[in-house]
Structures are given as structure tokens and as C-alpha cells.
């Protein structure tokens, strides 16, 4: 029977209409749209992150027609705003920070109707009851169908009280029988292993693990996702991606900025907590993980977790041999003088907080046994740049090269920011009668190659959370393992203050101790 005769039969009077046929107009017409209606509720809605990143991200998701048909955006914070005042504030933030330019009608006038605001203290259960009523009203008026995505964009000290209030006020999943409930938690997730476990215990009172989206915006960056594409969408790298061919791997997250307005937070955190424990270790897991069997998010997160569990525990007695720390002194960045860390606002004048951290780690498995992973991150360094450099082993036998020529190791560099791309350094013959060899670099830049500016990570991540795709979010077991990996360092560094602080000039390469860390292995850092 042909398709048309089947259709004709089904159209006969009395023929029961088929149930839930797929939409024939969807065949071949894909869409990136999020299907589930939902409310997105931002705690800390009057804060800087909301203005600079989160609201512009949501507006751009709307401009790209990615948001579902029915959605609500609810701000919750201590500041007192009416809905109209809050909308006006959000419009200002979009005008200033959105990558698509100022908010424009008719989209804005429709979008703003879906924005509302509830003010209250984060420990006032009555205000959370008011928030619940507000959300339930949105469900009726905006058609958001009891689906709720909470976003904690407050200081970390407020995470636990807010989660407690969510549970007490009946906003958590267990009280929400009509739809789904998810929560995005900004980093840092705890300040050490114990506090992370305590926070997790609070989270577990209100949410199941599959509802929790721990955000690390680094993972939303296109080049970070390109690491997986490079490794698993090409056949040429995988055979050499192991201890037989790789000499060492350097992962760098360097910044030129100081602590800016975050002195109060940063002085209690430091580079190891702020960058290494999350961003940099996450990068390491992507570089080192085994190919997942599926592109399913749990399969990927399983493989990343396995890397963390294979990390060789750092012996407390070797902490000072396998790590380096630093604190910036006054210096100059881009030709302009900048103050030392201890002279920054909200930083203790005798602070012993590190603004630079370098760590040597090993992954004890078949692929990476005895390959050192050197991780470093610091502020006020010579250049801003995040990259992963895979240094391959030396050639086994020198066949070419005139006297004095050096044959450098091949290096594959994955550049994450500000440049986004891949470079491969290899040896080539210098034209001429003699067999001179020198290293050349083959560059591929994502920006120029595909001519697009990557959308901000928050757009991708908020959209993913609304879809229920947790690939780019960190699972609790991985957070716990990452804290476990750095705890011996944190403890030893805390026990033994570094009397040499400040020990590197702003605008430089970092402390000399960091250079020594690699020199002891006969290696050196790539220049920042």
C-alpha cells in the first residue's frame, strides 16, 4: 500500500485517528529550540554576574529563538525593585553588555513581559513563600508548567541558606509534582573538601544529583569543547595520545588582571582554589580521558571522573617539591604600573594568599603512566592566555641537522583564550644546499577559520540546563575527587606560609620556584 493510500484510508470516516503521529513537517527541519516551558529563577539577580552575563545571555537565547514558547524569568535578591524597575535595569544591562547590541522592539517588549522580580533576604522563609506563589502564578499566566530552573549567582556563603529556603518553602523537587526542578550552582563548590561535602549534604536534602548543574563557565567555551572534537573526530591524534609518544603536558591559565573588585573573596581563596581545582583540572580531564563509548553526557562525565580517580595522590612530604606558589608584587602590565597584591582593595596587607599556583600531577593508568601534567594559573602575568600544550617525545635518532641546529620536540598547542585555535610545531628543512633544520608552526585559528565569534559560555550553559543536558556541568563525584586531589597542597601551604611573598613582579612569568619545578625534570614552561 502506498503512503498516500494509507493516508487516504486513515482519513475515512469512522477510522480512528492515529495517536501521536510524529509531526510530518518536522522531517528534516531541525531546531535548536528548547522544548520544555520553564521559569528561570535567579538568586542574586541584582548582582554583577546577572547584569554582565546572565541577562544578556537569556536575551540572546530569545533573539536566536532558542527559548521555549513559554518561559518566565524571575529575579530574587535583597535589593528593592518593582517589576518595572527591574526590567529597566535589565534592559540597561542588555544595552551595555549584550553581544547583539541594544535591546530592540518588538522582541524586547515581548521579552520584558516575562521578566519579574521578588525581593527578600536569603534566609527569610516568608519571602521564599512569596517567591513560590509568584512562580506558581507564572505557571498559570505564562504557561511555564511547573518546570523550574534555579540559578545561584550569589556569593558562595549564601548557597546553603538559599537551598535550605528552597526546600523549606516547598520550591524543591519533592514538592513539585507537576514538573521538573533543576538548580545551577556557580563555582566555587565549597572552599575545601569538607566544606564541599557540607554543601553537598545541603544540596542533597533538596535535590537529586541529576537535578544539580554545577557550572564552570570554562567548559562552555567553544575551544574547550573543541578539545573533544580534536581528539575524537580525527584519527591521526589518538594513536600518539599516550605515554609512548607524549613527553609531558602543560596546562596554563594565565591572566594579566589582578583581583579587581574581588579582593575580599580572592584573599580567602587563592589561585589553587579559584582556578586549578576547577577550570584547570577540568581541562586536564578532557585532555586525558578515554574516548567515551557514547556522546551521552553521563558517558563523558564518567570518563572525566575516571581520570580524577586515577590521579596519583600527592604525598604531603613532596608538596613543596611538586608544586610552586607565588604572589605578585608591584610591576607593570601593558606599560602601566600596577600595585602589588597586598596593596589591592580588601586584601590583607600581610596576606599569604597565592596569586599563582603550579602543580605537577601524574595520572596512574596505562595511557598516562609517568607522563607529568604541569598545571599553572596566575594573576598579573605577562600575557592573558589559556592553553594546553602537548609536548611529544624527542626523535629517537638524529638523522638530519647541521652542527648547531636543534631539533625541537613536536608540540601541539590547543589555544583556549583569548586566541582560539590549534598550533602544531614541527621541524622542517631550511631551503638551501645544507640540511639545516628548524621548527615551524602551523596555525589554525577557530576565529579566522570559521569566521565566527564564539557565543559567551553562559548562553550555551543556561540553554543546556534548560534542556536537561548536563555534559558541560560538573558532577559531584568529580568535584569531590578534584578537591581530594588538591587538599594535601592546600593543607601544606596553609601550614607553612611562604615567607618569600610577594615573589614575582606583575607583568612577568611568575615566581622562580615555578621555573625550578620544571627545571628539576629537565623541562621548562612555555613562555607566557
Amino acid at each position, binding site marked *: 500500500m502506498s503512503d498516500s493510500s494509507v493516508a*487516504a484510508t486513515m482519513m475515512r470516516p469512522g477510522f480512528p485517528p492515529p495517536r501521536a503521529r510524529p509531526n510530518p*513537517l518536522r522531517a528534516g527541519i531541525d531546531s535548536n529550540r528548547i522544548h520544555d516551558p520553564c521559569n528561570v529563577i535567579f538568586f542574586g539577580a541584582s548582582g554583577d554576574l546577572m547584569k554582565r552575563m546572565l541577562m544578556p545571555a537569556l536575551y540572546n537565547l530569545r533573539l536566536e529563538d532558542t527559548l521555549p514558547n513559554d518561559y518566565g524569568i524571575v529575579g530574587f535578591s535583597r535589593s528593592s525593585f518593582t517589576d518595572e524597575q527591574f526590567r529597566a535595569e535589565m534592559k540597561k544591562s542588555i544595552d551595555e553588555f549584550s553581544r547583539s547590541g541594544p535591546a530592540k522592539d518588538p522582541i524586547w517588549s515581548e521579552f520584558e513581559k516575562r521578566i519579574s522580580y521578588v525581593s527578600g533576604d536569603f534566609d527569610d522563609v516568608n519571602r521564599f513563600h512569596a517567591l513560590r506563589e509568584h512562580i506558581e502564578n507564572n505557571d498559570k499566566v505564562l504557561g511555564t508548567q511547573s518546570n523550574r530552573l534555579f540559578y545561584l549567582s550569589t556569593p558562595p556563603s549564601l548557597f546553603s541558606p538559599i537551598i535550605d529556603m528552597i526546600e523549606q518553602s516547598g520550591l524543591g523537587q519533592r514538592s513539585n509534582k507537576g514538573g521538573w526542578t533543576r538548580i545551577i550552582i556557580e563555582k566555587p563548590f565549597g572552599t575545601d573538601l569538607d566544606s564541599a561535602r557540607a554543601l553537598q549534604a545541603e544540596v542533597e536534602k533538596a535535590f537529586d544529583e541529576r537535578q544539580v548543574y554545577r557550572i564552570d563557565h570554562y567548559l562552555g567555551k567553544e575551544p574547550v569543547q573543541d578539545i573533544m572534537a580534536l581528539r575524537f573526530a580525527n584519527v591521526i591524534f589518538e594513536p600518539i595520545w599516550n605515554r609512548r609518544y607524549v613527553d609531558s603536558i602543560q596546562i596554563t591559565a594565565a591572566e594579566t588582571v589582578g583581583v579587581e573588585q574581588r579582593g575580599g573573596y580572592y584573599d580567602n581563596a587563592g589561585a589553587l582554589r579559584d582556578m586549578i581545582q576547577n577550570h584547570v583540572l577540568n581541562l586536564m580531564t578532557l585532555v586525558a580521558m578515554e574516548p567515551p563509548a557514547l556522546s551521552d553526557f553521563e558517558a563523558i562525565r564518567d570518563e572525566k571522573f575516571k581520570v580524577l580517580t586515577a590521579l596519583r595522590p600527592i604525598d604531603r612530604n613532596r608538596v613543596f617539591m611538586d608544586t610552586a606558589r607565588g604572589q605578585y608584587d608591584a610591576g607593570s602590565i601593558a606599560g602601566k604600573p600596577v600595585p602589588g597584591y597586598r596593596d589591592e582593595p580588601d586584601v590583607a596587607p600581610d596576606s599569604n594568599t597565592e596569586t599563582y599556583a603550579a602543580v605537577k600531577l601524574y595520572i596512574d593508568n596505562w595511557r598516562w603512566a609517568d607522563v607529568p601534567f604541569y598545571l599553572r594559573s596566575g594573576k598579573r602575568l605577562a600575557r592573558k592566555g589559556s592553553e594546553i600544550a602537548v609536548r611529544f617525545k624527542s626523535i629517537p635518532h638524529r638523522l638530519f641537522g647541521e652542527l648547531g641546529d636543534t631539533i625541537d620536540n613536536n608540540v601541539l598547542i590547543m589555544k583556549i583564550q583569548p586566541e582560539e585555535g590549534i598550533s602544531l610545531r614541527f621541524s622542517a628543512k631550511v631551503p638551501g644546499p645544507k640540511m639545516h633544520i628548524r621548527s615551524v608552526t602551523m596555525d589554525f585559528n577557530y576565529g579566522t577559520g570559521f569566521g565566527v*565569534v564564539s557565543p559567551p559560555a553562559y548562553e550555551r550553559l543556561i540553554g543546556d540546563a534548560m534542556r536537561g543536558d548536563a555534559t558541560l556541568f560538573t558532577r559531584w563525584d568529580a568535584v569531590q575527587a578534584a578537591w581530594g586531589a588538591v587538599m594535601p597542597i592546600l593543607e601544606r601551604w596553609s601550614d607553612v606560609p611562604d615567607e618569600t611573598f610577594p615573589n614575582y613582579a606583575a607583568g612577568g612569568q611568575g615566581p622562580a620556584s615555578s621555573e625550578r619545578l620544571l627545571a628539576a625534570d629537565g623541562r621548562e614552561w612555555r613562555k607566557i
Partner: protein
Amino acid sequence: MTAPIASTDFDLLREQLGKTSVSATTMNFIVWIDDINFRAWVLERTTKILEKHPARAILLDACPDTPAGAKLVRSEPGGTDDANITVHGERVEIGVKGMSADEIRELTGSLTMNGLPTLLWWTGEGITGQPAFDALVELADSLVVDSSGTRNDGATVIELTHFLARRRNIRLRDLAWMRLRPWQDMIARFFDDPTLREELYSVRSLRIVSGSEAEALYLSGWLASALGWTATAHLEFSDAAGTHIPFSSERAGRIRRIWAIEVSTESTRYSATVSEQDENVVFVKATGKNETPGRFVPLQAVDSPSLLERAILEPRADDLFESALRMVGTLTA
């Protein structure tokens, strides 16, 4: 050209120094131009494509006022300043007026890079009886045309149906069809709700308002092929149950753009109309039994560079397009 850098502007200096040449080349990009009125437009869009996809571009200029000869243009670092993109590409411009089709094919073939896919963007009026077209198609893996906005775009669509029938080894893309994607999504969206699915089988009329004919033909062809309609007469359909479905196609608005669509079922009228405030936004609503509040939907990526980019990035044959094209062939027969 790159602006001189003040000696004290170290940030800018570093930024400029950090920019490196692109050594990636993604394709051969052959562009045919024979209408002086479109020349600047085609050049601008070709440049935009090269900014995004480093390529060996070969512009074959058959405009009457273009002298014979060739020049090589290497794009300067720069690209779009606000996006901080450095672009290096190369473009060969050749005046081909007076050259035979064989000469054009031989010259063009000798300039393409081996081992790369070759895309032919044919901007000429029609494709039938054009020796240069027949010659260049031999070199291409993919052919991109825009049947919309030509002097007789309906006829061009018909020519494409014939081309499709005789050439199966080339990927055919029509920008007029590709431009419809957001409209197709909007129409599909009306019926994503499973409870409205049966509405699709009680469509009673179809009205399309567009600035050119190709879009209306394609959109109706797509709906017909997706819903199992048959073309019963010139611009007339009937559904699988034999119900007559009148199709009205009106000309209004800018060329190459849909202006409004109405799909009426037994109980409800589903409509989408370009906003008067912003031509890149569409107002959609349903009135009648299944009424829904109106909402604005942005039109995504309907500019020619975006469509060309999609043509480049979607390497497989487009079955949906080919089905719609065949339906258009029967509808206009």
C-alpha cells in the same frame, strides 16, 4: 589596510602581533557573474564568505564592461574589526567575456586546488542553454543558485527540476529554498503540540504572500510533499482524502522574502506575518478553535552569506529540497 599603531598602545600592538595567517583552506569557490547590476552585491557576499571560510575563490566575470584578463587579490588582515578576526584569503578575478565555454572550463580547472571540494555559485539568469554553466558544472561538487528575484524565478525553478532529473552526481542548493527554513520551522511549530497534529490533515486552504515567486512555489511544494497532497491542477492541491485545497500566491513585500503565510484548517487559521517594526521578526498567531496568543519570532540567518555558508556546511544531498522541487514541477506543469 591595518591602521598604524601608536607606539604607546601596547595592547593593540600585542593584539595585532598575535594575529597569524590562516593556513587552512576549505574549498575552491567558483563564482559566476554576468549581470553588472549584481556585480557589487555578489562581490560583497563572496568576500564575506571568504572571511568565514578560507578558500581559493575564482570569480568569473562575464559582465560586458569587464576587460579580459585576471588579477589576484589577497585580502588584507582585518576582516570585521569588532569581531577581532584576521582574514587571509585569495581571490582570482578573471574577465571572461569573449572566452569560449571550453576555455573558461580549462582555465578555471587549472586554477582550482586539488583535493578540495569545489563549490560553484552561479549567479547568472537561468541555467538552461548556458554553455558556460554546463562547462563549469563539470568542475563542481556542489552547485548553488538563487532562483528567487530573477526576471522569471518560477521558470528558473522549473529549470532546476530538469537539472535535478539529469544530474544526480552534484549537490544542488537553491538559496530561495534555503531562505525558507525559519518559515518552515514556524509552520511546523504550530503543529508540534501532539493534540494539534490531526489539524495537519484537515488543511482547507493555503495562502502565501511573497516578494518573488520561487519562495511561494517551494513552500507550497514542501507542504504538499510532507502532507501527502497531490497537485491536481495548476496551483491546486488535493489532500489524501481527495479534499480540494486552494492555494493562493500573492506578490507583495521585498523580493526573495516571504511576507505572510496562512494555513487554514477546518477550525483554525494559523498565520505568520513579517512585523512592521522589524522585517527580521515575524508575528505568529492562531485564531479560531485552537487560538494561541500572538508572539514574535526572529527570522534567523536568511541573509545570503549565511545561506551560502549553510550550503557549504551541509554537504549531503537535501532530500527534502529535492522532494519539494519535484512537487513544484508537477504543480506548475
